[in-house]
């Protein structure tokens, strides 16, 4: 009896340990694979060509700047939409809405998060882009802004869901304390609840941004995919080509081992590094905030 229990303990512990390690192993393997397939680019393509502003791979123009700026501008636009909307919705659901409203809203938002991105892409092509073209008087409705709007829509449920959980976890005593001191509802939300839930809210934003920068199908359908350098403010309202759409559109065509193939992996590496950077920045902010909170509490 004693012995079998020991065995069970041993196996279960090891299983859990393995699944914990496997996450690290897989990330390491993926990164290794990206490096192995992407790094040869640096030997095959001159850096002056990589830093060029022309992307036309079938004639060996491998300038990746238009793709990076394209991804950044679409993601930035999406974040500008998703962050205020998402956090606003989370505050409403968690702090202001009556209980019955909250019980309807929360599942609805989560349902919205389950919408397949290709469906949103269709909506974008058939409804949103014709509307934006006429409404904003643009040459075409297939622009970075269209992509940002849809990506914002995709990221909102993620932001709402995580931020709402974080706000909800703030102890009720904090709010009661604020009210007892005579703070209004808005002052309580802005000065007490939101700062107390700061790390969770930041995580929500980062997850939302991560969802936006990695999204492929929708942007490929609605941003027009023109590899133009997007550095002006007006670029938001003209077509762009993102890194994800480039990889998705072109990976099927390349023969494995060709220069174009290596460059596509190189773009994947850049994308990986960008999201890694975003994550590190976010967690360092959260870490600093935590330390400060601990100091105050002690």
């Amino acid at each position, binding site marked *: 009896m004693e012995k079998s229990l020991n065995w069970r303990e041993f196996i279960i512990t090891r299983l859990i*340990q393995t699944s914990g390690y*496997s996450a690290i192993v897989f990330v390491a393997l993926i990164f290794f694979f990206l490096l192995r397939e992407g790094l040869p680019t640096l030997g095959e393509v001159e850096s002056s060509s990589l830093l060029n502003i022309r992307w036309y791979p079938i004639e060996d123009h491998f300038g990746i700047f238009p793709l990076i700026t394209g991804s950044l501008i679409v993601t930035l636009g999406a974040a500008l939409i998703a962050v205020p909307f998402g956090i606003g919705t989370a505050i409403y659901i968690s702090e202001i809405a009556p209980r019955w409203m909250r019980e309807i809203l929360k599942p609805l938002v989560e349902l919205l998060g389950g919408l397949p991105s290709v469906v949103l892409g269709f909506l974008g*092509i058939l409804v949103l882009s*014709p509307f934006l073209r006429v409404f904003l008087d643009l*040459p*075409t409705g297939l622009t970075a802004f269209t992509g940002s709007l849809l990506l914002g829509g995709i990221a909102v449920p993620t932001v709402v869901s995580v931020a709402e959980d974080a706000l909800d976890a703030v102890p009720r005593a904090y709010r009661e304390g604020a009210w007892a001191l005579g703070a209004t509802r808005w002052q309580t939300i802005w000065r007490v609840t939101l700062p107390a839930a700061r790390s969770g809210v930041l995580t929500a934003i980062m997850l939302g941004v991560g969802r936006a920068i990695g999204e492929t199908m929708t942007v490929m359908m609605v941003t027009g995919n*023109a590899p133009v350098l997007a550095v002006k403010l007006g670029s938001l309202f003209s077509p762009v080509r993102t890194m994800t759409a480039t990889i998705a559109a*072109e990976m099927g065509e390349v*023969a*494995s081992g060709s220069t174009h193939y290596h460059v596509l992996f190189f773009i994947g590496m850049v994308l990986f590094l960008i999201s890694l950077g975003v994550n590190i920045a976010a967690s360092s902010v959260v870490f600093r905030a935590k330390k400060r909170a601990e100091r105050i509490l002690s």
Partner: protein
Amino acid sequence: MKHIIMLFLLSSFILTSCGPGTSAEAASDSQAAYIENKGSDTIVNLALAWAEKYQGENPDIRISVTGGGSGTGIASLINGTVDIANASRQIKEEEVDEAKANGIEPVEHVIARDAIAVIVNPENPVNELTLKQISDIYSGKINNWKEVGGDDRPIVRLSRETNSGTHVYFLETVLRLGSKEDKTLFSTDTLLLPSSEGIIAEVRQNPNAIGYDGLGYVPDDLKMIAIAKEEGGAYVLPAIQTVNDKSYAIARDLYMYTDGEPTGVVKEYLDWILAPEAQQIVEELGFVPALALSPSP
């Protein structure tokens, strides 16, 4: 534990690397032969129609048809994952070299002909353009419709993605007017759309747009442009007639590629495709039969 993970990873690598290519042989045991057919989106509807008819007549043959673009099809042939690659352009020299390095010998079969129609929104008053004007529009020298006799509107250039055979053909025949030395490229602000449907959807709702697509894919509610080979020449609309008498400027052959001379079920299928019955379907779908060269009624 670490060993088990490594084993798992290794075996999955091995599985994925030796999986494809042998479908035809493996299937012959179970009395059903499979033909993998992949490539050009221009040809995909035609290939599907052929596959459907052929499977109806030969129930023991299974043909799977997928699109993705000519480059995709040829890449799959090079990687040994398909029996037949469909292409709306000829295979490039680099691709032949890559194929040979992989032990694959691409063999070309012309299976139909196609005209590329240049399309605009019906609201656009422009009806005819010269080849040179279309080249200047796509290379970015002409940016407003009024420069070619239309309204004062910006021109929105639409193209297929670079993995499309139609894209490459259009680049060589129209943008570079067939000249090998010409290094003209598409204007960077050309919208590269991943599918024919994307181009058609945008042209349908946007009076600024100009696009191109295979003749068989242009719906009735879009306007095709009549094209003259040079200034002062006759403006010709794309049609089976004008492709066969060579008066329409942008027409090409459509190809299927196999690894080596085809044998067995693949050979029977290709022979059937070039017979009159299958070429009839070509015409029904708006393409031009490859048989037109031979005397037919």
